[in-house]
C-alpha cells in the first residue's frame, strides 16, 4: 500500500489531531510571510525554481482577476440600447454578437471586388533552402549520400499523417515543431480566438513548402471556424476560413494569424 493510503487509513480509524483546524488556519495565515521570506532568502537554483513558480502563480492570479472584472462589467451592461437597432424581443437580452459581427463584416468586405486578392502581409522575407532544411547525417548510407532533410521550421501535419518507412522518408518534420492550433485575430473586431488549423493553403516561399505544411510568416492557412457559428447566405454553417500567419512562428513558439476578410 502506498504511503498516502496508510495515512488515509489512519485518519479514518483515529480521526484528525484535535488542533488540526487551528494548525491549518495558522499555516495558511503564515503563508504570506513564508513566501516573502523565501523570495528574499533563497539563492541559486532554488531561488530560480521558486521565482519561476511564483511567476506562474502571479500570471494565473492576474488572469483570474481580469476575468472577474470582465464578468462584473458584463453584469452591469448598459441599460440604454446599443447603437445597432434591435427588435423589441431582443432589447433586454445580452446577446453575444461577436461571432455574428464577424460574419457580416466578412460579407460586407466580399462585396468589394478589389479586396478579394489582397492580404494583410503582401511581402515576405525569402527563406533559403539552407535555412529551411538541415541535412541529416545519421547512419552509414544516409551520411554518405546526404539525401535526408530535417525541416527546421514549424509545420502543420494533418491528423491522418503516418510516417513513411525510414528508408524512403526524405523530409522529417520534427514532432516538437508541429502545430495544430493558431491564434486567429479578426482585424476589425480585434477579437482573438484559438482555432484548429485545417490545412496549409499557400506558402509564398515555395510550392513545395505548401505541400510539406511549413508555417512561416505570410503563409495562408485554413482554420476551422465552426464553433463561431457563422452562417452563409444559403443558411449553411461556415466551416473553414482562410487566415494569414503574422508572426515568425519558429521564434515565438506559437502561431498567430489574421483572418482574411
Amino acid at each position, binding site marked *: 500500500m502506498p504511503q498516502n493510503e496508510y495515512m488515509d487509513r489512519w485518519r479514518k480509524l483515529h480521526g484528525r489531531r484535535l488542533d488540526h483546524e487551528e494548525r491549518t488556519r495558522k499555516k495558511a495565515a503564515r503563508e504570506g510571510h513564508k513566501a516573502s521570506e523565501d523570495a528574499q532568502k533563497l539563492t541559486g537554483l532554488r531561488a530560480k525554481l521558486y521565482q519561476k513558480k511564483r511567476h506562474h502563480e502571479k500570471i494565473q492570479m492576474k488572469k483570474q482577476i481580469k476575468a472577474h472584472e470582465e464578468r462584473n462589467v458584463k453584469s452591469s451592461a448598459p441599460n440604454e440600447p446599443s447603437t445597432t437597432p434591435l427588435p423589441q*424581443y431582443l432589447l433586454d437580452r445580452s446577446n453575444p454578437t461577436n461571432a455574428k459581427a464577424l460574419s457580416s463584416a466578412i460579407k460586407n468586405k466580399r462585396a468589394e471586388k478589389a479586396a478579394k486578392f489582397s492580404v494583410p502581409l503582401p511581402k515576405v522575407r525569402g527563406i533559403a533552402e539552407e535555412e529551411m532544411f538541415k541535412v541529416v547525417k545519421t547512419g552509414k548510407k544516409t551520411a554518405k549520400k546526404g539525401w535526408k532533410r530535417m525541416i527546421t521550421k514549424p509545420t502543420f501535419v494533418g491528423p491522418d499523417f503516418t510516417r513513411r518507412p525510414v528508408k524512403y522518408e526524405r523530409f522529417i518534420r520534427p514532432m516538437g515543431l508541429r502545430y495544430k492550433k493558431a491564434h486567429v485575430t479578426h482585424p476589425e473586431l480585434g477579437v482573438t480566438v484559438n482555432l484548429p488549423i485545417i490545412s496549409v493553403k499557400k506558402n509564398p516561399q515555395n510550392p513545395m513548402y505548401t505541400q510539406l505544411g511549413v508555417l512561416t510568416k505570410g503563409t495562408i492557412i485554413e482554420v476551422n471556424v465552426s464553433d463561431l457559428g457563422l452562417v452563409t447566405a444559403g443558411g449553411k454553417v461556415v466551416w473553414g476560413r482562410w487566415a494569414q500567419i503574422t508572426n515568425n512562428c519558429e521564434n515565438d513558439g506559437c502561431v498567430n494569424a489574421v483572418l482574411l476578410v
Partner: protein
Amino acid sequence: MATVLPPPSKRQRTDAADRARLQQNIEEVPKDAGSLRLQFYDETTGLPIGQGPVLVPVADATPRNLELLLNTLQGHDPSEYIPYRFTLPVPDKKTSETTTTAFPTNIYKTLISPGLISTEEVQNISAAPQAVFRVQAVSRCASSIPGHGEAILATQFSPRSSAKMVSGSGDNTARIWDCDTGTPIHTLKGHTSWVLAVSWSPDDSKIATGSMDNTVRLWDPKTGKQLGNPMKGHTKWVTSLAWEPYHTQQNGQPRMASASKDATVRVWSANQQTIELVLSGHKGSVSCVKWGGTGRIYTGSHDKTIKLWNDKDGTLVHTLNSHAHWVNHLALSTDFVIRTAFHDHTGKIPETKESKVSQAKDRFLKAATIQGEVVERLVSASDDFTMYLWDPSKGTKPVARMLGHQKQVNHVTFSPDGLLIASSGFDNHTKIWNARDGKFINTLRGHVAPVYQCAFSPDSRLLVTGSKDTTLKVWDMRTHKLSVDLPGHKDEVYAVDWSPDGQKVGSGGKDKAVRVWRH
C-alpha cells in the same frame, strides 16, 4: 438486307433500367390485408363523429377516400365538401410512447406491415377541418427592396390584401411598400428613434407605429401623412401595439392599445388621440399586448404575470401567475380573424358599415365558437422555456403546460383555424402543439440559429419561420417536414409575416432590405 436498328444508347439503357426499377417499386396492397376499423374524432372539440367505428378496407384507406367518407358521414352537400387533415396516434417502438402522425397515403406499407398498428384494433383518427382555399408555399424571392437605412425590426401586411406591407426600421422611419411591383409607396417620417412596432388597423384605414422615442404615431396608409400629433404618454419605449377588434368598436371610434417598457399599457382613442385608459399594475416591462374579441385586453409582462383587463373601464379581471420568468409573447386563437376583421379569402368587401361589422362579427364567432360557446384561448411563451395554454373564460388555471423547448421561447402563434400552436425559441427549433389540449405534436428542426418569428399561412397548412441564421423556412403542417428553404437574406431575419390572402410572405432583418416572397 433488312435495316437493323442501332443498339440502344447508354442513356436509353439507363432510362429503361430506371423505369423498370420504378415500376418494381409500386407496392400492391395484398387482397387479404383486411379492413381497418376507424373511429373519427373532431379535432376542434375532441368528440367522436358518427355512431361507432367504420369499417374501411385497407386498400381503400387513403386520405382522399376518408375525406369523402367523413363528409358523407356528416351529411354534407357534395358541393360543400370540406377538406380534412387526418392524424392518428402511432406507438413508437422504442419508447412505447404514442406520436401523432399524419394519415399516410399507403397505410399498409407505412404502418400495418411494420407492425405499428394492427387491423384488429379500432384506430382513433382525428379529423381537422381545413380551409376550403389553399395557399401555395412561397418558393422564391419576388423582390428585394432596399430603402431602409438600418435594420428592419417589424413588418406587417395590410389586412385587405397582399399588395401593401408596412415595415418599421432602425432608421427612425416606417415605410409602406407596394408588394406587387416591389416599389416603395410612402415613407412615414416623424419618429426620432427606432420604430419597434407596426400595426395595421383591422379596417385598413390607419397604421399605428410605436417607437423607441416613447411615442405612438398614427398614419394614413393612402397618403402616407401622419394623422394628428405624436401620442405622448409613455415614459419608456413602446414594445407592442394592438387595435380594438372591428366588431366591438363603437361606431367609428376605434381604439388602440400600446404596451411599453414603462410597465403600463395605454389605450388611446384613435380619433381624438387621447389616452382613454391607463392599465397600470404590471411591475415590469410589458412585452406584449393583445386585444381579444370578447372585451378583454391581454398583457404579458417581464414581471412573470399575464393580466386580463376589461376594455370598457380598464379594470383588472384576472392575473395569471404560473410562469417562472419573463413572459415574452402572447397569442390568441382568434388573432387572425381579429386582425383581418371583415376581409375574408374571397377578397370581397361589404358595402355598408353595418354589413362590415356584421361580417367581422360573423367571422369572429365562427372562429371562436367551439361547441356553441365563444372560447378565446390564450397561449403565452416565456423565458422559463415553457408555454402555458389558458382558457381565461374558465378561470385562472392553465389548460396545459407545454414543456419541451430547451431555451427561451420567443414567439408563439395560433394557426388561423385555431387547431395548432407553433412556438419558436432560442433553441433553434420550432415546435407544433395541439391547440385544444396543448399536447406536443412535433418539432421542426432545420434552423441552425435561434428562430425569432413564425407565421402561419391563412389556410393553416403551412408555416414560415425566420431565423438568425439568415434563412426563412416554409414547413408543411401535414407532414411536419421542411417544404421550402428560402435563403436570400444577408443577415439575421427579425420580422416575418404571411399576408392574410396567402399570396406573399414579407420579411425584413438586419440586412436592411425588405424581401417579398411568393409562389
